[in-house]
């Protein structure tokens, strides 16, 4: 049977019987069946005539007032479907605001009958279908979700959706529902570009697939990525001798320091030094007394310094630190002065910089870092050393060793620690040798220029071999491997180097560049080759490499005056190149199947669920097609496979599959996941079925993180226990503490409070407000996010949003608010990504959401404040009150506060004198007026822009008076707090369910309310109530059982 064909309806009951999860969960209670018709009748007998008589005059026709056409509600169904507007009707009737005073008024009894009817209808209808999962449409990821998901999928924050057009929002202001998220050919093109962009970041490693923070477009990119990883690895290793001496001191005085049971291992862990190297250092400095007595030279001196370290208590810790630094400096000096030195073997006709010769020199350095040069010691009987003159920097291709020798000879000339008693020379040499074996002259080399080891020039050539013009890299980190790294660290470092060559292909590229530029040393004239230009990959064939080797060996062997080590150096060099390249070929061949495994894992991760066997085969088949039919390389084919995965609706859409058809071969496991979750009420009229574990995991993670589920969540989905309320709640709590919860703080709060696009806000005249910089704008945007993030992670009371006396600032925002400077660490001075909590924010007229600069700024039209917009924002967004849209013609206010004769307060008072305007404006202007103490960019102020003193007093609806922010908050606490909570609950539920609310959600809202009150208003109680609700856990039964919602029907028409 064609799997895409719809299942005939008559089969459906049969299917139901056999799927344990797919039972009719909700039975229709009989009482409601009896009640509904009477409500229906009442509508026709009472309500319809009432609205016809009193409301139609304004609220019907082509342009109904406030865009409310009451004539369109011809039956109960229509009312139920659009309940929110009828809630508004209820509110207006109850408050006697409608019909307007100037119009004929109904009797009190008639008014009450309609009020009663709306309330009764609400109660009956909301309970009839309570818990209905509702129509949750399949939808593409929102732009924000796309970016966060790519970040969590690849491990790098690429943000490919930055080029996408802004997502439309649904009627509640959120951009995460299928009602508003649509797809178009233009957007599909952007999706393809985005997927390609992510693909450009892909890196193949010997073990799998990685993603680089930048696109891997060119060879220099391919160098940069692995080099940065290796250098970062080096820099993160504990190689400061002072830290080891200090750790040894802590161990020595462990009892006095209150840790009598400490071991070298625990001290090493506490001090963040290598547990392998600390005992080695310890053993040297803390020898048994009889051995110590016999020590001479640098070991004896170091041991004396060690013994002189003061015990704890008597002195400050920084005294010990300072002395440990002295010990380190002593070690570093000795090792610098006794480091081994090497020059390239001298070969007539070859420059010192010739790669085989230079590499030999580098190899000598690398393998003698733990040796001491005995020639650097002087007998006490010798005359004072003659300080050599320092030669100039050598020319190109010339040996730099003589200059380095002169430099170091000058450096050690005054070092009396190198003077040894002639009679005990052997004993001293042994001390220096042992000293060097423990303290290498360096642990690793990160940069190399032309005059290596002289690093006075050529800064920043990371891991470079120091060749002239030709690329090349050289590894020199044996002491780090041997002394500091444990086996795991060694493997990691070896792997990084192996990956370096795997990714950058540097040995081959070095050889090709070398071949075309320096093979002329033996093959042609001068330094540049005149040989034929080999084609394709022939340059790196063994034959070419070994041929060049033999030519070099022949040249070197021809002249007996040449350094006899040279032929060996040459053989080693070319053989090494050849072996490395042949080894890489093998590694690459072996890596291909691993990449395919990684590709399947990537798909599984991207689809947020396991793959079926057919899907796995399909992905591999596509790869093979690309290789064989399209003739792509392995890497290109993997890259395109990744692009196709990212373009697949399985990735970029969130859809919950129809269990009737989705249960194919994997039915056994799916059926398990479909098992009926505990605790579900069974009194619903609408049928539905539980989401699978994976679907639930995604729903949870996109709710709390705006991103894909992590491995732990998917693990519970796989185990089939995610629907268990205890597991679900534990996961929700864990996720709220995770840093990814910033996704919710940004997306939910940003859309709820309407500041999500503030990062692009251009409404401020920067010439008039020069302190409004890009940094300040970003800080303003971040403030509420940081505030909410803190509330989520620490499970604070949601009332802190209103009454919290604290806020969060970074340096630029603190300055804007006139708060003390943000202090950073001494090591890391405060930057604009340093955010601190300010506990006494009220001293600066801040604290909680309302006085945050972002809201005050986004609701100001540039050169003046807007009490109208600010008040409207507060009433509509924070208090959740529905305000009808204004009439088409509204009076304009002056644009620049400093150029108007009247204070804005007085102008608004005139405005409200017009009863048409007053009906709505009386409800919100006053709140904005109370914020007049804040200027157009949210700055606290005592005067307006024309220099008039600020008056922030307000008379609130109901007649109470207040002044400024405190007055607003006191009024809200007294009169509107429940409205705020109710609004928050509704918005959060819309956001969580990715759909508009239904009347049948009302009982859940009530439950959220009760639980919130019982749990001290903690945010987690809202989340826990939502995620354990039937709405969240279930999916409406698909297909013809339910009538499609009107907007979906419209959409279908459009598409068809």
């Amino acid at each position, binding site marked *: 049977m064609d799997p*895409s*064909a719809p299942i005939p309806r008559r089969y459906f009951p049969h299917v139901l019987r056999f799927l344990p999860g797919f039972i009719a969960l909700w039975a229709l209670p009989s009482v409601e069946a009896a009640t509904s018709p009477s409500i229906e009748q009442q509508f026709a007998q009472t309500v319809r005539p009432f609205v016809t008589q009193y409301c139609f005059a304004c609220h019907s026709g082509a342009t109904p007032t406030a865009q409310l056409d009451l004539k369109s509600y011809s039956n109960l169904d229509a009312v139920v479907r659009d309940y929110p507007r009828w809630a508004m009707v209820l509110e207006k009737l109850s408050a006697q605001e409608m019909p307007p005073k100037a119009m004929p008024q109904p009797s009190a009894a008639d008014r009450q009958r309609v009020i009663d009817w709306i309330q009764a209808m609400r109660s009956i209808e909301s309970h009839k279908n309570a818990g209905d999962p509702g129509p949750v*449409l*399949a939808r593409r990821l929102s732009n924000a979700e796309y970016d966060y998901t790519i970040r969590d999928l690849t491990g790098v924050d690429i943000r490919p959706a930055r080029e996408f057009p802004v997502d439309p929002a649904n009627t509640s202001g959120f951009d995460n529902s299928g009602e508003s998220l649509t*797809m178009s*050919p233009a*957007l*599909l093109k952007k999706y*393809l*570009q985005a*997927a*390609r962009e992510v693909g450009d970041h892909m890196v193949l490693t010997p073990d799998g697939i990685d993603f680089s923070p930048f*696109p891997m*477009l*060119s*060879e*220099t990119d391919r160098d*940069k990525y692995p080099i940065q990883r290796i250098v970062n690895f080096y820099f993160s290793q504990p190689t400061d001798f002072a830290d080891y001496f200090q750790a040894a001191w802590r161990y020595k005085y462990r009892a006095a320091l209150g840790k009598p049971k400490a071991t070298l291992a625990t001290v090493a862990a506490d001090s963040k030094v290598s547990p392998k190297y600390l005992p080695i250092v310890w053993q040297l400095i803390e020898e048994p007394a009889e051995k110590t007595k016999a020590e001479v030279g640098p070991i004896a001196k170091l041991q004396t310094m060690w013994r002189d370290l003061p015990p704890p208590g008597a002195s400050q810790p920084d005294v010990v630190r300072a002395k440990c630094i002295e010990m380190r400096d002593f070690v570093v000096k000795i090792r610098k002065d006794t480091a081994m030195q090497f020059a390239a073997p001298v070969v007539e006709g070859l420059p010192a910089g010739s790669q085989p010769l230079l590499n030999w020199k580098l190899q000598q350095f690398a393998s003698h870092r733990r040796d001491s040069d005995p020639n650097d010691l002087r007998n006490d009987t010798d005359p004072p050393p003659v300080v050599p003159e320092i030669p100039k920097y050598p020319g*190109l291709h010339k040996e730099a060793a003589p200059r380095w020798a002169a430099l170091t000879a000058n450096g050690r000339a005054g070092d009396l620690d190198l003077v040894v008693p002639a009679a005990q020379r052997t004993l001293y040499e042994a001390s220096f040798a042992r000293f060097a074996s423990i303290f290498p002259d360096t642990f690793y080399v990160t940069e190399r220029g*032309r005059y290596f080891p002289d690093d006075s020039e*050529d800064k*920043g*050539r*990371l891991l*470079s071999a*120091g*060749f*002239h*013009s*030709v*690329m090349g890299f050289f590894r020199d980190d044996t002491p780090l491997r041997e002394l500091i790294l444990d086996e795991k660290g060694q493997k990691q470092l070896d792997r990084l180097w192996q990956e370096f060559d795997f990714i950058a292909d540097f040995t081959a590229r*070095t050889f090709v*560049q070398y071949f075309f530029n320096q093979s*002329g040393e033996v093959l*042609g*004239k*001068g330094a*540049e*080759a*005149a040989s034929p*230009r*080999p084609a*394709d990959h022939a340059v790196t064939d063994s034959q070419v490499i070994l041929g060049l080797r033999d030519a070099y060996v022949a040249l070197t062997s021809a002249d007996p005056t040449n350094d006899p080590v040279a032929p060996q150096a040459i053989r080693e060099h070319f053989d090494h190149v050849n072996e490395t390249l042949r080894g890489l070929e093998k590694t690459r061949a072996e890596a291909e199947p691993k990449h395919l495994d990684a590709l399947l894992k990537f798909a599984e991760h991207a689809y947020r669920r396991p793959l079926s066997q057919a899907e796995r085969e399909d992905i591999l088949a596509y790869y093979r*097609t*690309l290789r064989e039919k*399209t003739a792509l390389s392995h890497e*290109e084919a993997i890259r395109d496979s990744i692009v*196709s995965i990212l*373009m*697949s609706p*399985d990735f970029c859409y969130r*859809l*919950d*599959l129809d269990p009737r*058809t989705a249960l194919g071969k994997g039915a056994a496991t799916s059926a398990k996941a479909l098992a009926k979750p505990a605790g579900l009420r069974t009194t619903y009229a609408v049928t539905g079925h539980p989401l699978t574990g994976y679907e639930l995991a995604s729903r949870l993670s996109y709710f709390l993180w705006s991103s894909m589920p992590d491995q732990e969540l998917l693990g519970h989905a796989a185990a089939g226990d995610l629907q268990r309320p205890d597991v679900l709640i534990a996961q929700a709590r864990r996720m709220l503490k995770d840093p990814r919860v910033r996704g919710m703080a940004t997306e939910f709060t940003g859309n709820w409070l309407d500041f999500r696009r503030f990062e692009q806000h251009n409404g401020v005249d920067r010439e008039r407000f020069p302190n409004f910089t890009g940094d300040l704008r970003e800080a303003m945007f971040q403030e509420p996010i940081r505030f909410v993030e803190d509330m989520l992670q620490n499970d604070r009371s949601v009332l802190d949003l209103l009454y919290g006396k604290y806020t969060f600032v970074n340096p630029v925002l603190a300055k804007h608010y006139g708060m003390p400077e943000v202090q950073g660490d001494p090591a890391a001075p405060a930057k604009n990504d340093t955010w601190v909590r300010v506990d006494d924010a009220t001293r600066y007229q801040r604290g909680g959401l309302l006085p945050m600069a972002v809201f005050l700024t986004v609701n100001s039209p540039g050169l003046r404040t807007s009490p109208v917009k600010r008040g409207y924002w507060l009433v509509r967004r924070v208090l959740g009150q529905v305000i009808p849209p204004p009439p088409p013609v509204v009076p304009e206010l002056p644009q620049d506060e400093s150029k108007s004769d009247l204070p804005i307060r007085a102008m608004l008072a005139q405005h409200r004198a017009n009863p048409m305007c007053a009906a709505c404006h009386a409800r919100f202007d006053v709140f904005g007026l109370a914020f007049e103490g804040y200027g157009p960019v949210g700055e606290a102020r005592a005067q307006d822009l024309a220099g008039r003193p600020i008056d922030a007093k307000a008379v609130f609806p109901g007649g109470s008076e207040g002044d400024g922010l405190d007055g607003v908050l006191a009024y809200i606490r007294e009169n509107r707090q429940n409205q705020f909570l109710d609004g928050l609950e509704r918005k959060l539920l819309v956001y969580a369910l990715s759909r508009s609310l239904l009347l049948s959600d009302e009982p859940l809202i009530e439950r959220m309310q009760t639980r919130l009150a019982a749990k001290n208003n903690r945010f987690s109680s809202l989340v826990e109530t939502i995620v354990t609700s039937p709405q969240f856990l279930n999916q409406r039964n*698909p*297909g*013809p059982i339910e009538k499609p919602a009107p907007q*979906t029907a419209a959409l279908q028409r459009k*598409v068809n």
Partner: protein
Amino acid sequence: MPRSTPDPSTRISRRAVLRGAGVAVALPWLESLPAFGDPTAPATFPKRFAVLFQGNGINENHWSAEGSGADMKLSKTLSPLEPLKHKINVIDGLFNKAATGHGIHPPQTGSLLSGAEIQKGAIIRSGVSVDQMIANTVGQDTALSSIVLACDQPMTGYHETNYSMAYSSHISWQTPDSPIPVEVYPSLAFDSLFENRGALRNISVLDRVKDRAETLSGKVSSDDKAKLDEYLTSVREVEKRIESMRKVKDKSDELAKQKNRPAFTMDRPQNGLPEDLRDHARLMCDIIAIAFQTDRTRVASLIISRDLSAMYYPFLEVSDGHHSASHNNLSDAYERISRFHVSQLAYLATKLDSMPEGDGTVLDNSCLMFLSELWIGRLHDNTRLPLVLAGGLGGTLETGRALNYYKAGDENRKMCSFYLSIMDRMGIKLDRFGDASTRLERL
């Protein structure tokens, strides 16, 4: 052209590939018809821009032009352009200030086409080059936004100035962080032009996605199906555009045949690097010519020899390698090297001039820019640059002139001013580019 014929079996299979794949179309999709294929198209033709680069400067004793039009006198090095002199401009005295004072070679080349400040050490950073600025805009309408070619192998080590050799080996930069990898193999350059691999690959991805969405469509509820249909519709819509593009291409080929005006044709070059640089350079010029003629792209750059080139010129009887020879740039030998490079410009310009387009030729609708990063190799002097243009850029650029800016003052002889002027004519109006905010006068 002295080049061996490809093995016939290879040729047949290659043609088979071309028949099937050459009609495919790259993203982003072309919204309008290619002008030359449609008799009803307006009389404006696409403008094209190409850069030809020679490394290490010229022989300044033999580089000059005087007079204008048919009376223009060209020096020895410029003599290959003699037959075309009414269609060229020789511009003297421009320079790139950002490329002076930072040492020799890589810093002199790294910002040649961008005027950017470049960075030393391991992290490479330059600026978006003028050809890529143009490609970003006009490349939207063609199969490839640009082609970036070289006859010289790139290097990525360090020069003694501590600048990466990558700066010496590339002139085209798509982003400040990475140069565009150069294509040195003529065969692969040809393939990328005509096989449209990028487009084919995207089509393959879309096909697959369509299949998947169709399968899924049967597994979701009817409401969700509507959402998926939206997705499928988008994919199909995109495919439809590709289909109509295919028809446009077929139609334009057909029209060319009817008018008995066979397009310049070219066989796929053999795999591998041509051993002789002369063959190599000509193949690369042929590729640019056919790309411009067929409107596969409107932007090209070609490094004939790179900065610090190690290439040899046995056919010019020069024993030193290119870079060594440039240190003695007053030599006859080096003059021959420079003249060889200029003759590639002459070859490409002549080829384009033989392709009728409207009342003129493809050359008339193009601007070929020949330059080097140095004036005097032995002094590493880049305080003025050798610069020759060929082509009239669709009548917007007067030709047959020798323009000298050397004594106009540093503010009035910026390469970036020149780039602004060229970009204006290509329809890219910028307030600033590199170090310039004014256009080049008199151009």
